[in-house]
């Protein structure tokens, strides 16, 4: 079975590469006598994560909640706005240029403002996750609707299909692949938004733990948090990829 063999080979290459990388890190740091507050050996990071596991878990759940709620709100509001802009020429002339202009604002610059508005707690981080995730979703939703094939629209007109039927049977399925693409971009951005919010001012969360770790030169803990954040982001991305599988008609033209 050549397929299995080659896949096995591909996996073993990945494992070997990362193994070599971690070994190089572990022994390179020791060999070159790098100060542990600059770059701790990977084993020290693992120990730090294990020792602080309940703290890291608790803060992870807190950050995860911020990300998911912010992302969910971005999906709901983004899809609604995308639809409004799609159906209303007025919104297309007024709201959409505004949205596009706001998209170019560096969202991280808004973090202090969010904390002034919503406080140090949960809500300001949700707002940050929302701000980061919102624009790609609006743009992707609108792009999806606008990309509905013209010949299919005419076909539906020839069948006297009403606006609701055309929406549910044609436009919605047409827009789904683009919408999922938007989610792919938006999900990691929501995590970035939440973490930036926590770094600027927070009482809990992985970003807060990073700040505490930095203040007490616990670089091992800081690295541990960064790794955990990356793993959570990867898991969320995998979730979107899984959902994307049900929209299998992406890119299929018949």
């Amino acid at each position, binding site marked *: 079975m050549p397929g299995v063999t080659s896949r096995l080979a591909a996996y073993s290459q990945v494992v070997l590469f990362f193994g070599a990388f971690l070994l190089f890190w572990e022994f390179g740091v020791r060999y070159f006598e790098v100060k542990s507050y600059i770059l701790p050996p990977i084993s020290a990071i693992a120990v730090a994560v294990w020792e602080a596991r309940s703290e890291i878990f608790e803060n992870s759940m807190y950050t995860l909640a911020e990300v998911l709620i912010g992302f969910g709100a971005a999906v709901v509001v983004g899809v609604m706005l995308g639809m409004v802009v799609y159906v209303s020429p007025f919104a297309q002339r007024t709201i959409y240029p505004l949205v596009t202009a706001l998209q170019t604002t560096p969202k991280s610059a808004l973090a202090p403002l969010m904390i002034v508005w919503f406080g140090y707690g949960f809500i300001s981080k949700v707002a940050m996750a929302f701000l980061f995730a919102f624009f790609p979703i609006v743009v992707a939703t609108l792009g999806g609707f606008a990309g509905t094939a013209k*010949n*299919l629209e*005419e*076909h*539906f*007109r*020839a*069948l*006297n*299909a009403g606006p609701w*039927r055309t929406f549910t*049977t*044609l436009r919605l*399925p047409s827009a789904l692949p683009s919408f999922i693409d938007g989610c792919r971009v938006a999900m990691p951005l929501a995590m970035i938004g939440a973490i930036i919010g926590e770094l600027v001012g927070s009482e809990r969360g992985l970003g807060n733990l990073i700040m505490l770790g930095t203040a007490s030169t616990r670089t091992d803990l800081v690295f541990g948090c960064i790794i955990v954040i990356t793993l959570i982001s990867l898991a969320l991305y995998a979730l979107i990829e899984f959902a994307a599988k049900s929209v299998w*008609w992406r890119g*299929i*033209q*018949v």
Partner: protein
Amino acid sequence: MVSTATAEVPKSGKGLNVAAEPAVNHIEAQGLNKTFGSFKALEDIDFTINNQEFVSVLGPSGCGKSTLLRIVAGLIPYESGSATIKGEKVRAPRPDVGVVFQTNNMLPWLTVRRNVELGARIRNMPADARDAAVDKILDVLSLTKFADAHPHQLSGGMRQRASIGQALVLDPQILLMDEPFGALDALTRDKLNVELLRIWQESRKTVMLITHSIAEAVFLSDRVLVMADRPGKIVEEVTIDLPRPRNAATTRAMPKFGEYVAYLGKVMGVAS
């Protein structure tokens, strides 16, 4: 009261009710004009297509023949003159008119069966009648085996057959076809011509077929309307006096078939 047997249809078309007796002229255009901005697409188009007649509109690309079909289908408006179906002025797409376009209109995310029954669902046909109609059409088009496949798994010819099925599911009396085989290779096209002929000979619908293939027009039609471009107008009308039922082997081998093809080629300015 206007007799549906005559070509005299009032411009207004209002208050006409021809449901009682079958209309003889199913599709009619009188002095039809259409412009896109300053571009004159159609000029003074006059023609009649009778009940159960198969008429092809033959013309070079860009002559406005697709525009003509879209006007008859009620998909785009026109400026002056009139287009009527069964004596009623065309204002919007009608349930008794099926349209087949050049690009197959399959929704990639639906199975062949769901694609074919789309029109029936949109027009709220009862489920059992719909299922029976779809079963029959899939059988007629030899697509039964592919009912649960998705469009991208089919060949181009099969997709186009399924598109014809989409139009046939409501059993329309009138079928408008806009170069339905234009995107297919010559061999598949010939095969589908034979199939279309068979379907038409069995169900006797009124057909208006837009094509730029002379052989296709001659093989299938009772009459051929030839269009010229800039502006689009009908320049010639040829009655195809070949015996029916026609079939692939004998009809195409008839000397008269070749004569019609040669003559239409000359009319269209193709060296033959």
